[in-house]
């Protein structure tokens, strides 16, 4: 039995089918990137798994059928970061992170002292130290994403669904966020499904990449073990004429670099 299994998942908006009979499995401690062109269904896939969108097919997390769960039970098992949080009222960073405990609290219960301490330690971990009492609305877009990440991690859920968490972050924070998610998964034996815009970030920080095209998983990439040429061929379908290269940074770490071929020659 795999840790998390998606079986024959299909989603349609009206007659238009966005995802058709999609299936995959994941292990624990895996960080899985989802790549695809705009409109390929990355967001739809994540929303379907967490039950926000109606769908056919099944998602099974450690023998729990997610489709059968009430919102509260579901929220205990998996947590979701939207592309942009809908928070539009004055609220402190700490209170925002404490929202994450909601599914674990009884009807009349309030967040305990331990929960507050845990929330503060996570605010530190995502790099927002000292901002606990800052108004969420006054944060930059990138800091808002980090705050929502803290809210997601605070509950120890086993499945993290992150929808383009890096889109508002600059270079440094992108890598910091992904390495945080990776080490989190290793420590907590959780799995993260992360839809990503930046293919280089995905290649260097995910254990596995699912490439979405036309509502299917067109191919799967294992960046650590696959050969450059096989990855190149798969990525070409999404990003056009590109080439991949191995580079070593000054601290001796090998990285994959993606370059555009025929630069400035228009569409190929």
């Amino acid at each position, binding site marked *: 039995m795999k840790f998390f299994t998606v079986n024959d998942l299909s989603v349609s908006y009206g007659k238009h089918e966005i995802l058709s009979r999609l299936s995959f499995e994941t292990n624990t401690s895996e960080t899985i990137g989802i790549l695809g062109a705009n409109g390929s269904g990355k967001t739809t896939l994540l929303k379907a798994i967490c039950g926000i969108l109606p769908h056919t097919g099944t998602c099974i997390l450690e023998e729990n059928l997610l489709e059968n769960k009430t919102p509260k039970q579901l*929220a205990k098992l998996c947590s979701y970061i939207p592309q942009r949080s*809908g928070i539009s*009222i*004055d609220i402190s960073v700490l209170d925002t992170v404490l929202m994450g405990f*909601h599914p674990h609290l009884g009807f009349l219960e309030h967040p305990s002292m331990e929960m507050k301490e845990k929330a503060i330690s996570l605010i530190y971990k995502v790099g927002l130290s000292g901002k606990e*009492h800052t108004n969420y609305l006054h944060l930059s877009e990138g800091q808002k994403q980090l705050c929502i990440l803290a809210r997601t991690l605070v509950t120890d859920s086993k499945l993290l669904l992150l929808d383009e968490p890096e889109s508002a972050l600059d270079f440094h924070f992108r890598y910091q966020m992904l390495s945080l998610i990776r080490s989190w998964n290793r420590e907590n034996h959780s799995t993260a499904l992360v839809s990503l815009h930046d293919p280089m970030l995905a290649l260097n920080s995910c254990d596995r990449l699912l490439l979405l095209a036309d509502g299917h998983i067109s191919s799967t990439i294992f960046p650590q073990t696959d050969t450059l040429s096989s990855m190149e061929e798969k990525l070409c379908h999404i990003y056009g004429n590109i080439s991949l290269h191995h580079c070593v940074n000054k601290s001796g770490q090998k990285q994959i670099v993606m370059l555009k071929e025929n630069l400035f020659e228009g569409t190929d």
Partner: protein
Amino acid sequence: MTLNTVKNKYYYIAGAILLIALAIVSLYVGKYPLSMEKLLSGDDLQWRVFLTLRLSRTVVGIMGGFALGVAGFVFQTVFRNALASPDIIGVSSGASAGAAAGILFLSGSLAITLSSFAGALGAVVIALFLSSLDKSGKNSTIVLAGIAVHSLAQTFLMCLKLTADPERELASIEYWIMGSLSGISGYSITANLILCILCLCILFLLHRHVIILSTEEGEARMLGVSVTTLRLIVLLTATLTVASIISLTGLISFIGLLAPHTARLLTKENRIQTMLLSGFLGGILLCGADILARSVSATELPVSIFTSLLGAPFLIYLILQERRSL
């Protein structure tokens, strides 16, 4: 900018003190002068005025303002809109239509209270039912349904006014719509107040849920909230709170909008304390307006005149302050 919790604590304390002070003033002010000495010596007439007129009027002033403030806070938060108020899902127009029907076809103040309560509740139940037909569960659907019900109730009210006798009935309908605390006396208020307190308790207990409802629908769901059901419960409870008050007093404008807005501008927060402060401010505003309404001129004036007169300049001042600090 860091949220200033210490400064906010002073706001809560100041709000509570001001409310208590106004309550004491309200017990004394009125056509019939009361004095502490005579009350203590057991003067029968003094006690009767105190218990049946002043006390009930003050209690309704404070509770009513508090309830309108809290309900306004809940509506603004759930709809993510600073202009949202219980009116947008048809509660006030439903109550007016109900009261008008009561004035025309029934007799006695209790009957009018009951029929305006039924009108308010009926309008909101229809609005929420209509919005539940759309399965997408969007906030905007509720607002649209509310507008539809609101205009239906207005039309119904207009028809009732047309059939009303202009000398007596039409005048009482108009006077009811203007709102006043003058008719309140004795024990007719007990049921309404019990309902109001009950609903307020529920709203405070649900505070954490109300805040989560202010996020996007999918996000709230992933925080473990059954959005549609919870929103229905919260909106119905907030409506009941408002209906229990305005069926006693008639329409009271502006408090549901102004009190929560002021509480937010002062505290820059949305915690349970902000909701409480919003209630305090509502109570202060209604109680203060009522004191003026019965003391400024020889005849009683509608209380809404003073809620707007007191509230509007203060709100404008706060908004200008806010602009300057940015």
